């Protein structure tokens, strides 16, 4: 990973670590964020229907990662599972825990950081449509500026549900940002894919595949 905030790579691979880290957090909607922050600056291309995040373009100061996974379960079940934010650490590798603050739609995300430390971000739900969409963003004054959105759509031919998660993240400056970036040196795309596939495993099979032979080993 190069220096944090140096957003010169496709899909923000550099600060990605952070993204997913937070990603776990928010993995915020590229499109969402892009629409809000960059309105009018990204001409729509009528010949390309691919999600904007897959294009070879940048999103200003934000790094964006997004993935879609098909889960062979009903939309309402997956929505309910995700809406209970305390479930998310079950499949998001970098999130230690998520606690509701008691205030409506607000949660505190505890993100794993190097040397056993953690970073916290408070988010609020900014948009919600039952069985369709949940969007959240970090509250004002957070160390990490992040937004996330997850969409649920019926997959064709009874294949279950398309779950599309997008997280956008503005790398923080200063020591914290560098620390997080160093920790999550994995590619954010990979991290996002792994998280969503863990979710898929858990909801489809009731468990997450484990290749080990013994709990103690590695």
């Amino acid at each position: 990973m190069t220096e944090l905030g140096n957003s010169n790579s496709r899909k923000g691979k550099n600060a990605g670590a952070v993204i997913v880290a937070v990603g776990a957090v928010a993995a915020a909607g590229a499109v969402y964020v892009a629409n809000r922050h960059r309105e009018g600056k990204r001409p729509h291309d009528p010949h390309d229907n691919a999600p904007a995040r897959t294009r070879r373009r940048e999103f200003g100061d934000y790094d964006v990662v997004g993935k879609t996974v098909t889960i062979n379960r009903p939309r309402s079940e997956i929505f309910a599972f995700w809406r209970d934010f305390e479930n998310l650490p079950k499949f998001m590798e970098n999130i230690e825990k998520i606690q509701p603050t008691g205030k409506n739609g607000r949660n505190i995300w505890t993100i794993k950081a190097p040397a056993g430390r953690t970073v916290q971000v408070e988010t609020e739900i900014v948009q919600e449509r039952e069985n369709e969409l949940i969007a959240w963003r970090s509250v004002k004054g957070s160390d990490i500026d992040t937004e996330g959105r997850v969409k649920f759509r019926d997959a064709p031919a009874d294949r279950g549900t398309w779950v599309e998660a997008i997280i956008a993240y503005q790398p923080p400056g200063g020591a914290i940002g560098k620390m997080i970036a160093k920790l999550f040196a994995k590619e954010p795309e990979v991290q996002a894919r792994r998280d969503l596939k863990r979710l898929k495993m858990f909801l489809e099979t009731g468990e997450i595949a484990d290749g080990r032979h013994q709990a103690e080993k590695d």
Partner: protein
Amino acid sequence: MRALTWHGTHDVRVDTVPDPQILNPRDAIIQITSTAICGSDLHLYDGVIPSMQPGDIIGHEFMGEVVEVGPKSTLQEGDRVVVPFTISCGNCYFCGKEQYSACDNSNPVENQDITEKMFGHAVGGLFGYSHMTGGYAGGQAEYARVPFSDVGPIVIPDGLEDEQVLFLSDILPTGWMGAENAEIENGDIVAVWGCGPVGLFAIQSALIMGAEKVIAIDHYPGRLKLAHDLGAETIDFHQTDVREALMEMSGGIGPDAVIDAVGMEAHGFAVDNLLDIAKQKVGVGADRAAALKQAILAVRKGGRISMPGVYGGFTDKFPLGAFMEKGLQLKTGQTHVQRYTKPLLEKIQQGKIDTTFLISHRLPLEEAPKGYENFKNNQNEWTKVVLNP
């Protein structure tokens, strides 16, 4: 427990390792009574499969007795089971289509990265076959942990010996699917490259499926004899020009369907094959596909190619022109074992399929390294090795 572990090219050892544990609710632990060395284990032995780690327990053909179950397993302690080499969840889209080896949920996410990059999609989990297929410990051991034990293992009724059913784990369904993928029609002439265990079972299956004639191709007299005994005609490719012989043996048309039961380490004299051997030795992942290339040239126009042989990388000089201009089709894949275990068990019980004819050697687990060495270097006599832990 004692287990066969991989330490590098041509270096396998029987070591004492920790016993397996139940890690997930649907797991079971099997005490292994019989396990076999597979031809594809030789690819591991030869060091041509990437993502192996020293100490990995290998082996993916095994059966035994259930000794421990997780809370969501449907097996009972004491059940006698054969375990498919493919690990499949039974819940995902692919398992729903009975494409079990394409299971989305059996390969741990961390292990999916390699094949996601290399093949464009992550492959399913397999027992004892490198980390890109999950890093699961294999079955050439005293015990094995079996994930999704409510989906994979088939319970064996009393009255059947281990050797009658052991090969339901891999090579019998693999040979069967190899023949099925050749879409054999009545009166067809089918050519099979490779008279190893999978080729032999493919020959037997093709005849059951109504092939008029099966022509077996190999260069080991011992293996050609086994094919001949099954009812196949044979070609020794060291003695005979294969394409010309196949044309003559099929009325100048060429075989209707061809089966490549050889895979990535094909023997052969062609220059490009020798080049590929060199590349494999320096580890650039080239598949030696001499058998497949020959099969493509030999098969009749509009014919069918089935490829149960294992490949893991890339191949040069693929005869793409012949493939297109002759209007061929190719079907392949790791075996969807769970699709075949029940119907093939019935055929064994009815006496329609013989599974024991190819077993040449039976060894205690402790002598497994000797089994590998001979299965690799003395293929004429060593056609199939069964290990008893």
